[in-house]
Each structure stands twice: as structure tokens, then as C-alpha cells.
């Protein structure tokens, strides 16, 4: 086993998530650099444990209920708010045309025409559930939810490189 291979799994080893296989323990026994690094990573992990997060407040459920009720009570305005999102605004006219069409056809049964539109698109080939391909393709199909803020896509790799020369 090479040092790079050990380092690839070191975060898991240090946090106790990863299994220490005989190959790994064999390498650690003979490589002081990796063994030392692992020990330091363990200490870092222990330090990070000190950053605790609070429990949800007793108000959490009540406020979530209120927000959900609000959402359900004002389907029209929720739909409008959804449409006002900046990136979606560009596609506003197209969505409106399709959305209104669907809305009418379904007798106003849903307040998220955009979602219905995608949900109804069952012609899409179903990927095998539980497989990586299936998961990923399904994630892409669920994309309408986050397509309006594709921030994950702009998390800069260059940033990382610069920060850790």
C-alpha cells in the first residue's frame, strides 16, 4: 500500500469511520510519516468535536407548522414567489404558458405547476433504483429544486488550490 492510498482514507481512519484493514495497519507499522500524520489527524478530530451545535428550539415545530400552513393557504402567492426567483425569471414567459396550460388541464389541483410538469414526465426512462447511475439520474431529474441556485457548481476548486499550496 502506498502513502497516497493511506492519505486518501485518513480522514475516515482518524474519525473512526474507516476500517483499519491489515494492509493499512501493515503500512502504518512500517511508515512513521503516515503513522504520525494519522495521530495528528486524530487530535484534530478530537478538537473539532468540541464545536457543538445546539438542539432545535422548542419553537421549531410550531414555526415550521405555521410556515407550512401559510404555504398551503396561499398557493397563488407561493407560486408567484417561486417564479420571482432571479434565474427562473428568465424562463418566466415559457413556464407561465406551460404552467397555466397544465394548471387548467388539471383543474387547479396543484399549486406547483412546474413540479407537476416534471412529475408528469413519466416517459423518462426509469433508471435502476439503488444503483449509482439510478441515484445520479434521479438527482438530475429532481434538479428543478436547485436549478435556480446552482451554487454548488460554482464552489471554486481554484480556491482550494490557492488556500493549500
Amino acid at each position: 500500500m502506498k502513502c497516497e492510498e493511506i492519505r486518501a482514507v485518513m480522514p475516515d481512519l482518524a474519525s473512526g469511520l474507516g476500517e483499519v484493514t491489515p494492509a493499512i495497519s501493515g503500512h502504518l507499522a512500517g511508515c512513521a510519516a503516515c503513522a504520525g500524520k494519522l495521530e495528528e489527524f486524530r487530535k484534530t478530530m478530537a478538537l473539532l468535536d468540541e464545536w457543538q451545535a445546539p438542539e432545535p428550539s422548542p419553537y421549531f415545530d410550531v414555526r415550521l407548522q405555521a410556515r407550512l400552513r401559510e404555504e398551503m393557504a396561499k398557493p397563488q402567492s407561493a407560486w408567484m414567489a417561486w417564479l420571482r426567483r432571479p434565474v427562473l425569471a428568465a424562463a418566466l414567459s415559457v413556464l407561465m404558458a406551460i404552467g397555466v396550460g397544465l394548471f387548467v388541464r388539471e383543474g387547479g389541483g396543484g399549486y406547483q405547476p412546474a413540479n407537476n410538469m416534471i412529475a408528469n414526465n413519466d416517459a423518462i426512462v426509469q433508471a435502476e433504483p439503488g444503483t449509482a447511475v439510478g441515484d445520479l439520474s434521479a438527482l438530475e431529474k429532481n434538479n428543478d429544486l436547485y436549478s435556480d441556485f446552482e451554487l454548488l457548481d460554482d464552489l471554486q476548486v481554484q480556491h482550494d488550490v490557492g488556500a493549500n499550496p
Partner: protein
Amino acid sequence: MDTRELEGEQLSPRNGVQSGVSTATMDGGILMASLGARPGAGLQPALAGAEGYTDAEVMLRVKSGDQAAFDFLVQKYRRPLVSFMYRMARNAAAAEDLAQEVFLRVYRSRQSYEASAKFTTWLYRIATNLAVNHARDTRRERPEVTISLDEPDQETGTTMDVRDSSMTAEENLVREERMAAIRRKVEALPERQRTAVIMHKYQQMDYRQIAEVLKLSESATKSLLFRAYESLREQLKEFV
């Protein structure tokens, strides 16, 4: 509230918030609009009924209009999500609002949910987008966002209390200072590293799941995490 006291019971109903409606089951969905109080006790039978169901299957019930199924997911994930948002948002007061927003988005998007997606991957992708978005917005507004544990929530007036009641005030102060320093170091990481560390260290997510949420390859995720911890190790030296 002693935080340790509540450790490991994230599925249990919270004190005082929920009243005993024991009729809610996975099959007997209850209308959210008709709820005066939360069906706290109702979640226990729902939980029992949900045994053997994956989250994705529960989410499909939400899609088909089962309100109790949605409640089940909220109860299961509110604690992990609040802590995730607390660490991601750089603003303690916003953590609960953001976690609620995640649930609202899940609810709004129930019709488009595809069962073959791992539910938690979907959930954390929504959460990460929201948190990153929020962090960017607040950074733009206030270049130096200061986060105080003692700062009361603007709406509820409560503090995000993580103090340990078994310690003296002085010990708590020292502890809070260390915590604040650690938090600052994590927050100073490049965005993607920070997100990966929070998911790995505090949400116990594995490489594959983190990779899926961040849309990276597994090997890229491994190297991202290694670099992140390596830089934290360096930065936290003085505290070891």
C-alpha cells in the same frame, strides 16, 4: 437545557410542543391544515409503521399526499439539519429558519421527487445550496459577521445555548472561546472544503454521499477532505 441529555433521541417528540394525537399512522395521513397541535405521540405509531421503509419510500408517501409521512421525515431530520445549518450558515440565529426552509422546499417539491435518489443526498443538496447562498448573502451585507452564542434569536428571543451546566462560568468561558476559535478555523476554509468537513465530521456522511451532494468524484472528495483536515491540523496546532 443540557444538550447531552437529549443526545441520541432525535426521533423523539420534543417537550411541550406536541400533544398526544395517537391516530396518525403512515397510512392515515392527517391534514396539516387541521392540526392545532403537532401529533407528537402519533409519530411513534407512524415510526413503528414505517419500519422497513426507506426514506425514499416515505418520501413517495409524501408525494402521494400522506401528511404523516412528511411529519415523520421532519422529526427524523430536523435535529441533523438544524446542526448542519448552524455550522454552515455563519449565523446561529438563521440556522432554524434555514432548516425550516429546507423542509418547506422538500414539501413544495414533493411532486417531482424521484424515489431512486437517495433521500439524504437530495436533502443535503437542498440544504447545502441554501446555506451557501445564505452565507454569501450575509457576507455581502456584513463583511464581518460576528456570531455570538449568546445573541438571542430575533424572533423567539431564545439563545442557541450550548453551555454545559456542570461547568463553572469560568470553565464555560474557556470552553466557549475554544469553540469559537475552532469554529472560525472551519469557517475560514474554502467553501467546498468547509462543506465537506461539516458533512464528514459532523453529519457522519461517507465519501460517496458527500461526493454526490457536491457533484464530485469520490477520489476528488477524498483529496478535498484530506486537504481540509490537513489545513485544520495546521491551524489548530496551538489548541492541541
